[in-house]
């Protein structure tokens, strides 16, 4: 009896699956736009691919075109728990406001997954945006593969996909982000200068599988090898982006290497953890991070952390929106657009970011 009722309800659920199209009346029809040609599924390195610096892009392509009415951009970040993604979001929202002021009919919808482990949820967001038939998608996938089905579906429906760093989508036709390898190079150069070309350094790596972590470490190592033979990399280990684990690593290294001079960390969160260990030890060790988060700036101002490489997510977000409009406007872009980054230390920590990278508002076609 109860069992029968249960079956009836389950049946209803299944039925609603079938009836649903009647209600929705097949509102969405993917046939209006031609499918987007995706890139082949091959390893892709935005540092070395066909690319252009964003300033060069502006110079060669001119003002931002107006692709027409009802522009709906969907942006999917990793997790708003992380300051980086919140800053990126505010950059995109600034771009939205600027464009609206100019009379563009645009909405930028920025959403994120539930934490950096929510791969399926992030994909659901993309599906939802595709179902809503957005004009273009700006995606920062959690892993290199979790958004692939969403990208494929978007492409079939003619929705352009722009990969915003970090997290790589091999098949996405466009990528916006800094040269990750340059990150490491800037840090290496600064450390080598400060140490006068002699000394011992260590590297705290993020998640070893992450593209950004690999490239940052690679850039750091290869610059040192090529330009500072007197500097020895004595340790490198991953701390999986975790502040606590980075601190533990640093504590161990400080004890085992009494002559350690500097520690390069793949991001600021880990650098802050390392800095705590350095403070506790009372030793004079240079700590350099990457990302330029607020806490790192405060630490540099307080004379603790030595430097960070800021890739300016606030401006990156604006550039990403700009690139989306250029793609929608039919402009011919190279696959990669490199965004600005700069090393921040005590000398420029109080200088406005726009000044450091010499940021200029773009020109608008409207």
């Amino acid at each position: 009896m109860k069992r029968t009722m249960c079956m009836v309800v389950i049946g209803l659920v299944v039925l609603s699956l079938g009836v649903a199209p009647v209600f929705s009346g097949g509102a969405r029809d993917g046939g209006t736009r031609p499918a987007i040609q995706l890139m082949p599924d091959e390893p892709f390195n935005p540092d070395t691919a066909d690319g252009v610096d964003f300033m060069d892009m502006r110079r060669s392509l001119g003002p931002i075109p107006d692709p027409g009415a009802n522009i709906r951009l969907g942006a999917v970040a990793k997790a708003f728990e992380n300051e980086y993604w919140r800053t990126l979001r505010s950059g995109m929202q600034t771009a939205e406001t600027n464009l609206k002021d100019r009379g563009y009919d645009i909405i930028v919808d920025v959403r994120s997954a539930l934490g950096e482990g929510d791969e399926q949820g992030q994909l659901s967001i993309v599906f939802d945006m595709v179902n809503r038939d957005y004009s273009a998608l700006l995606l920062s996938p959690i892993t290199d593969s979790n958004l692939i089905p969403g990208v494929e579906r978007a492409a079939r429906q003619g929705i352009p996909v722009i990969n915003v760093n970090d997290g790589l989508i091999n098949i996405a036709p466009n990528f916006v982000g800094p040269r990750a390898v340059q990150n490491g190079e800037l840090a290496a150069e600064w450390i080598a200068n400060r140490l006068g070309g002699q000394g011992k350094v260590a590297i705290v790596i993020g998640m070893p599988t992450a593209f950004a972590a690999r490239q940052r470490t690679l850039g750091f190592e290869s610059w040192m090898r090529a330009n500072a033979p007197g500097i020895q990399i004595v340790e490198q280990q991953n701390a999986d982006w975790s502040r606590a684990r980075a601190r533990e690593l640093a504590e161990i290294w400080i004890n085992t290497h009494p002559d350690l001079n500097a520690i390069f960390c793949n991001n600021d969160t880990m650098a802050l953890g390392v800095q705590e260990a350095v403070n506790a030890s009372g030793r004079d060790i240079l700590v350099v991070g990457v990302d330029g988060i607020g806490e790192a700036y405060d630490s540099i101002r307080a004379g603790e952390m030595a430097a960070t490489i800021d890739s300016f997510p606030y401006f990156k977000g604006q550039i990403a929106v700009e690139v989306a409009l250029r793609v929608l406007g039919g402009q011919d872009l190279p696959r990669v657009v490199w965004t600005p980054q700069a090393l921040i230390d005590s000398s420029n920590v109080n200088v406005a970011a726009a000044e450091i990278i010499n940021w200029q508002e773009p020109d608008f076609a409207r």
Partner: protein
Amino acid sequence: MKVRLDTYRELGISIALVVMIGVFAFINPVYIRTNNLIDIVQQSTVNGMLAIGITFTIITGGIDLSVGSTFAVVIVSVGMLVTNGVPPLVGVAIGIIIGLTLGIVNGLLITKMKLQPFIATLGMMSVYRGVAYVMTGGWPVVRIPREFRDLTDGRVIGEIPVSVFSLIAFAIIAHVLLNRTRFGAYLYAIGGNEQATRLSGVNVDRTKVFAYGFCGIGAALAGMVLLGRLGSGEPTAGITYELLAIAAAAVGGTSLAGGKGTITGTLLGALLLSALRVGLIVAGMDSFWQFIATGLVIVVAAYFEVIQQRLRFQRNKKPVVTP
């Protein structure tokens, strides 16, 4: 009238599911478009398979925390095999064998070495994860051949992918195992009272090892579904998936104390979580609030279980008092 304890539960979740779908559809009609509904079902396949497997271990009064890692080992090993020219179906078979083997290892640790399931599988969770990293050097396995992807991601009827049918087939097998075989009867008995079951001459150890092996198969199937779906396999895949699977089983009425649980319930639980997740996204809820909403649904579902217990207790007490 028959007293079937679990039926009320399943009825309850079904109603909750229908109500939820109605509410989300009201908020945003996009939600009940065919495409979106298929997404909901498709997104529940991975968790559904993991949850069905873990339900077996939970019914025995145990737990398998290593499913997410088993999942990753299967993803990377099958991925490496099929990209190196192994025929897809052979890859699937090997994947199932790997899952089964890892599950059996868990089972043996628990029965032969007398480890507590929580600790044993907590340890193996880390071991298997490490195996996945070591096998790949941390790099994802990319460019999975189309033929393999079609096995799970191909479309059969309309837009419905193969994986949905795989889940249904797996669920039916699991249901039959639980309800129509000795193995299933023993699982419930062990969860209800292991000592009494042992004293009834049941081979408790072997039954438990089977349960963990079956759980491993669930993880393997889920892994291969994801592998086909994404076209590449990450050694980091499936981190924290065990918790989601446990949540699905628990929402579906499986008691973590053992002895109770059904496949229908677990499946509905997985479907409910997936429908909720997609619904919150479609409704455009802020991601921070989504955490709160998801957690509340799990807690409320658990509370329904408590209420139900109480009702059942009152109902069944009566005939004894007044014979």
